[in-house]
């Protein structure tokens, strides 16, 4: 089967809805193809004494899987999301307070961590928390022939040799977080980063469009 270079480098359809839950301070749902994640943010709010940090806000991230209790995989994802958010948030503006981010996986069809990151960023934006930059998540998969697939579906992820997820910041398109699975060469890594940086432009444009639409006066 011949794989066209251009056809694998696509992002599936995006969808996003902000402010869809009434109780949290910020909420969003982000859909990438069939993958869908719902995010809610509370904060800045009162913090428990044992979690208090004297010079910045405490950020807690929780990811709920769709079925079954959360396991090690969720913990690992939580950590990735938390570290990215901590890097982007200006948490020193809210010392001794708590920020909590809850992510609910609604449907997993590949690129789940990237979808979580995007939903988290939209929710943080919706909550109006001060951030130094925005961030987005891009997943690249490298298949057996060495072809790079952006935003892979679950099936594509399964058939691939390596899966790499990057968080890219909006200011300088730098890599804020990376997590990889499988084996790949240095060259492939650099190619994936370059692809992700290019893809992030599309995602940030989408962020911009959706926020613009949200604050526009007409539909």
């Amino acid at each position, binding site marked *: 089967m011949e794989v066209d270079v251009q056809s694998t*480098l696509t992002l599936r*359809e995006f969808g996003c809805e902000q402010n*869809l*839950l009434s109780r949290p301070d910020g909420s969003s749902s982000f*859909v990438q193809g069939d993958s869908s994640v719902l995010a809610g943010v509370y904060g800045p709010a009162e913090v428990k004494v044992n979690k208090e940090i004297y010079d910045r806000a405490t950020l807690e991230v929780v990811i709920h899987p769709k079925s079954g209790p959360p396991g090690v995989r969720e913990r690992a994802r939580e950590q990735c999301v938390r570290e990215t958010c901590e890097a982007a948030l200006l948490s020193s503006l809210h010392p001794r307070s708590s920020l*909590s981010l809850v992510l*609910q996986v609604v449907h997993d069809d590949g690129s789940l961590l990237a979808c979580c990151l995007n939903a988290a960023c939209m929710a943080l934006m919706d909550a109006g928390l001060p951030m130094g930059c925005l961030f987005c998540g891009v997943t690249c998969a490298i298949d057996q022939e060495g072809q790079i697939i952006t935003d892979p579906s679950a099936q594509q992820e399964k058939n691939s040799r390596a899966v790499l997820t990057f968080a890219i910041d909006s200011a300088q398109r730098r890599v804020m977080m990376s997590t990889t699975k499988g084996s790949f060469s240095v060259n492939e890594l650099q190619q994936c980063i*370059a692809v992700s940086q290019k893809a992030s432009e599309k995602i940030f444009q989408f962020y911009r469009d959706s926020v613009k639409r*949200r604050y526009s006066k007409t*539909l």
Partner: protein
Amino acid sequence: MRETPLSNCERDFLLKAIQEKKRLEGRQTYDYRNIKITFGTDYGCCIVDLGKTRVLAQVSCELVAPKESRPTEGILFFNLELSPMASPSFELGRQSELLVKLNRLLERCLRNSKCIDTESLCVVSGEKVWQIRVDVHGEEVTVYSADERDPIPLSIYHMPICVSFSFFLQGTYLLVDPCEREERVMDGLLVIAMNKHREICSIQSSGGIMLLKEQVLRCSKIASVKVSEITDLISRALENDKRVRKEGGKFGFAESIPKQRITALKSDEAAIEMTDMEEKAEGIISSTEPPSEPVPSPVVRAPGTGQVGESLENAWGVEQLEEEEEDSVDHVMDEGQEKEEEEEEESQYCNKADVVVISDSEEEEVVVLHQEAQVDSKQQVSGPQQPGTGDSKKKKKKKKKPVQ
């Protein structure tokens, strides 16, 4: 995080409104909130919106050994979670009273009413049965009116639907389907689970209110009307989902994002143009230094002995060396400037304390070298920017110190 308490004003307002037969959302006493049912791309997955309450349910199954007491029956397991997303007062991993209550309600309503044919889940008697697991995530819980249906043709005998009633002022006033605010001021709650054949599957009364027989009967009458409405809605939604799946059209949550809402946006599939990707990657790699060659075979003195860093490149002193280099470059590059700065700094130093302590540190060496110049520079004391330069210089010195 604790829940925000309800103020007395709000409480009085709500109760007064109820006495005047008005509700906060403009509903009538017996009105239900809007129900919206969305199915996911997986089988056995749905999101139900009841007003602003939103619940996600997923049915999954696995093969397990049956219970010893019932070797021919499958196991139906409910796992209810109150996600902290729904309310900040919900904590993770804590069995709150509400959680237990709702879980029990689900079990009684769906398992104990035998609405699912558990015997049909048996694969090998006494060895293997399907365990059906229902995960319910409360996402925006204000009140729980649960209904569960399994699009996998699980044989379902009947669909019990729960309808909740709340009582105010010791049972004087009754509301159907209370919202979160109303639940917080109510005295008692009655949940009736009923199927469309008007059979009551379970009744749960909480809040410790005394109910009259007439009240319960009235509630059950109301429930029967609501249940038939909701059953209709569910079967219509199921049929719709089935039809769309059959036709191969688009379905799932991605399609359920409302297009007409200003807070929502959907984009089409986007291609990323990547023409220079490979050159770029190679450029980055060629511009970075190649990693140091690994030692082909490390020397092992004797098998089984511990050894440290034998014949490998020593990276311990590298950082210090670099710093020293940097410093020396500094000296060469702007020696003249540095001298001046140092003089100024020293002059300030001298102004503050006239006693010059001579020690063998580098700073003082400089002082000794330029002592004559220093005396002169005492006069030309510092403009407004000089304290700054002095400071930066001091910092630099501090950095240098560990080198020495």
